[in-house]
Each structure stands twice: as structure tokens, then as C-alpha cells.
């Protein structure tokens, strides 16, 4: 839960900026950039986990710098786990937000300009409220996905109780040690949290978009 909350808190504002930028600009190589950002959707989690583990290890300047400053390794720490989780969740956060901003008709932005609205006023009063269902989807997907993530977390975070052990890994541990009742309880907890968040998200999204339909 802590990992999911921290990931969401850091990733969502970044995804709003990135998603808006991707939705409103066009440049050479944009398709490649979008492809790179979507890689976590298609790559096996262990592959991403492996590269992140290498990048955070003591043989790279990133790992060495972190170790010098903080006194411990980035890999197998909560900070390392958050970084890995943010990278792995990029497509789940950016894509719904990008699509939401793309869906705003261009003539609304032009109408805002003709009203004399500044860029900031247009963003806060017109674009952000209209993209709200996309932001909600992004938040729910990121949160639920982090809760259930297994491969990357295990590779980068290891399985350190109180530091990098997540519910998903705990379930695996319990099954390995034949504690099926505990595993079942935790699985039910994850299932309930995921179902409730997705249910609320879908409900709100439908309500909001229905309210604005036939613009």
C-alpha cells in the first residue's frame, strides 16, 4: 500500500505533464518515444527488473552515487523499489492521460483563446476538468497495478520484510510454505482493493462523461 501510494503521488503529476505534452505537440521521433514509454506493457517484468537491478547496482555511476550519498545500495531499498515501480507504471499512468487530453476538441482550446484566457487558465479551467476521467483512470490503474506487481518488485526489491516486501510477494511466500489460509486471506484483500478501486473509477468516469456528452 505504501509503495502504491508513493508511486502514485510521484508519478501522477509527472504523467499529467508528460501526457499533456505528448497530446498537444508533434515532433519527429514522437512514435519512438511513445514506443519506449509503452515498453513495460510488452516486456516481461523480469527483463525490466533485471536491467533496473543492473542500473541500480554498485557497478554503475547511479548506484555508486546513491551509495556514497545515502550509505546503502539503491537496489533492495524502498527508494529503489519506488523508482522501479514508477518506471514500470509509466504507460499505465501516461497513456490514459494522453488519450484524455487528445480527446479534447481543438476548437475548445481556440474558443478559450478567443475568450481571452491565458494558457494557465485554459489548462486549469477547461482542459484539466475535461481530462479528469483520464486522470482518474490513470490513478486507479497505477495504484492497482503497483499493488499487484510481482516480477519487478522481486527482482529490484528482493524480499526484505518491512522494507521491500509487498503483499503480492508475501502471497507467494505463504504458498511456498504451504500457508494457504494466510495466502488466501491476502489474495482476497488484494482482490477486494482492486475491485473496489476499479469499480469506483469506472463509475465516476461514466458519470462524468455522461454529464458532458453531446457537447
Amino acid at each position, binding site marked *: 500500500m505504501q509503495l502504491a501510494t508513493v508511486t502514485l503521488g510521484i508519478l501522477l503529476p509527472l504523467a499529467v505533464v508528460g501526457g499533456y505534452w505528448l497530446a498537444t505537440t508533434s515532433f519527429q521521433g514522437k512514435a519512438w518515444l511513445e514506443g519506449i514509454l509503452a515498453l513495460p506493457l510488452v516486456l516481461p517484468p523480469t527483463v525490466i527488473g533485471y536491467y533496473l537491478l543492473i542500473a541500480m547496482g554498485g557497478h554503475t555511476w547511479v548506484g555508486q552515487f546513491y551509495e556514497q550519498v545515502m550509505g546503502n545500495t539503491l537496489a533492495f531499498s524502498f527508494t529503489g523499489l519506488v523508482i522501479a515501480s514508477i518506471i514500470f507504471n509509466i504507460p499505465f499512468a501516461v497513456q490514459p492521460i494522453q488519450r484524455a487530453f487528445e480527446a479534447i*476538441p481543438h*476548437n475548445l482550446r481556440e474558443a*478559450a483563446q*478567443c*475568450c481571452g484566457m491565458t494558457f494557465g487558465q485554459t489548462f486549469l479551467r477547461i482542459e484539466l476538468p*475535461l481530462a479528469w476521467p483520464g486522470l482518474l483512470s490513470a490513478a486507479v490503474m497505477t495504484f492497482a497495478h503497483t499493488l499487484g506487481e510481482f516480477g519487478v518488485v522481486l527482482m529490484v526489491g528482493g524480499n526484505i520484510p518491512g522494507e521491500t516486501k509487498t503483499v503480492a510477494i508475501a502471497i507467494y511466500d505463504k504458498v511456498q510454505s504451504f500457508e494457504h489460509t494466510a495466502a488466501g486471506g491476502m489474495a482476497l484483500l488484494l482482490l477486494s482493493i482492486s475491485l473496489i478501486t476499479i469499480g469506483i473509477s469506472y463509475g465516476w468516469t461514466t458519470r462524468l462523461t455522461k*454529464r458532458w456528452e453531446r457537447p
Partner: protein
Amino acid sequence: MSLFLELHNDAPLLNFHAEIPSDRITALLGPSGSGKTSILRAIAGLSKCKQEVVRFAKETWSDSTTGLHLPTRHRPVGLVPQHYALFPHLTALENVTMALLALPTPERQQRALECLGLVHIAELKNRYPHELSGGQKQRVALARAIAKQPKVLLLDEPFSAIDYSTRKHLYVELLRLHETLSATIVLVTHDLEEAAQLTSYMCLLHQGRLVQAGETEEVLTHPICEEAVRLLDIPNLFDGRVEWVNDQPCLHWGTYTLQLPPGQLQPSDPVRWAIQPANVLMVRPDKPWSNHLENPILTQVIEVIKLGSDTLVWLAPTEMPETRLQMRLPIRAVHRYAIAPNQNITVCLRGTDVIVLATCGHE
């Protein structure tokens, strides 16, 4: 105090130079793809042309030679886009207040309500756009456009998605609003009737070019070239030749000779000429024949088609049976004189109604 425009662009093609009079309603009239909306967007500053000068009174809004391009939000313009572009998550009142963000909140609300009142929909202030009809949306868009008291109001085919009766009602309201606001209004339309009813100045456009500009009445009744005649949908377009006989210009049309009023006409090679169907005048059978009739031509009725309160009558001059001349008559006249195919009738083509056309430079 006029709106001066000089716009040149490759895509979309634009080669437009005109001076739009202030405090009047001006029509930008032309078929789809003639560059009307591009001109409106250039005035608003929503798009840049390769070469452009946009100047209102002494204020320059765009000048490509100096690189000046005043951002849209700093231009004193109001825009009603084709599909209104109302903010769907805001009520009618909130939509209007978006144009008044520079004012303090209480003043903003009051001014927005005043604007909704001006277009007679103050009672719908709490409705969202999807709860409004086409005509009501158009009024909200109009209220939003006039809220910041623009010097130039731009209307991009605002009546195209509205039913006929609502449209007629809105025409009257626009004219009333214009009297109240005294703003320069530029109306983009492809509807000839709409332009004739609402505007006092007209720019006729084709393929991004200005074909003719002038007082609406003058443009409609005296198109200057064949291209303008085609854009105004005047079907009576013929070949002829101008000659001076006894200090009087005459137009030779096949075997007929039409007397023209003295003017600037010069003897010429073959010319094209036109006449409005409404200006083909039927000589009443009950009226005795006399010499005062101008350019009488005996014709045979070929076809009669009733079109609303008017009737279109196709005639063949007896001396040129292959030629078709269209006449527009009120339906009551057709009934009174029992106009029917194969009947012979005399029409007169007054010299002042005959439009001898210049050759358009781009044809």
C-alpha cells in the same frame, strides 16, 4: 476605422486583399473551400498566413514583414465557431464568465447574466450545453462572444446547424444585437439568401481569392464578372457583342439587339452578359402593347416549376429556340395568367438590368 486584410498563403490557398467597413455586418460569401474560415481564423489570430497584414483602425494585429502576431487572447475579437465550441463541463452562465475572467467575480457574474439577457436566454443560465437545443447553444456562444465587448465579432456559419424557423428568428435577433453593440461583424456563410438578408457589405470569394467586394445590394444586382455571376447562381448567362449605334450602346444577342443605357461601355469583341431571373419581366397579356416596352422578346414557355412562393419559368426566345432564359415569378402571377408550357409570352429585358460582364483577371 476599417478592418484591413491582406492575406497570402499556399495551404490553404489564400490570396485575399480587402478592407472591411467598420460598424457594419459584412458577409464573406463563397462555396466550401473558398477560404472563408481561413480568413476568419487569420483575423482572430488562430492561424498564421505566409504573408499577412491584419489591421483594425490604426492598430496592427498581424504583420508578417515585421514578424508581429498579436496573440488571439489580446485581440479585441469575439468568435462564434461553426459548432459553437461551448465548454461541455460548464453551465451556460459559466461558459459566458470564461470570457470575463479579467473582472472580479461578482461583476463577472452580473455581466455574464446581462449578456445572456441580451440574447434572451438568461433563464437557461444553469443548463449544461447538452441540455440546450441548437438555437439555444448558438445564443450562449453569441453571449460568450460579445461578453468582452469585442470590436470585431466573427461569426463562422453560425446558422448552418439550425432549423429554418429558429434561423429566421435568430436573424432578427442578430440585427437587433448589432444595433445595440455597433460592432464590426464578419459573417461567414455560403447561403446567398442569408447574406442578402443580414449584411450590408459583401466579399465574394472563390478559391481563396476575392472576386468582388462592395455593398451587398450592388454585388447581388451587379456582379462584375462571369465568376461572380456563377457564385451568385445567376442562370441567365449569355454571349453577346456591344456596339454603338446612333450614340447609343446596343448589345447584340444572337438575332436580337438590346438597347443599353449610356455608360462606360465600349464597342467590344464578344462579351458575356447576364440578367437576374427576377429581372426578366413578363409583359402582361391584359396590358396593351406599346412602344415604351424596353427590349421586348417573344418567347415560348418550356417548363414551369413551383418553388415555394416563387415559380421558375424556363423560356425559349422564338428566334433562338435552343437558348434558355429563366424567369422568376410570384406564384400568384402564374395562376392569374395561367402560365403553362408551350404558351407564348413576351418578356422585356430592361437595359438597366442587363449586366455586361468584365473578364475576371484569373479566369
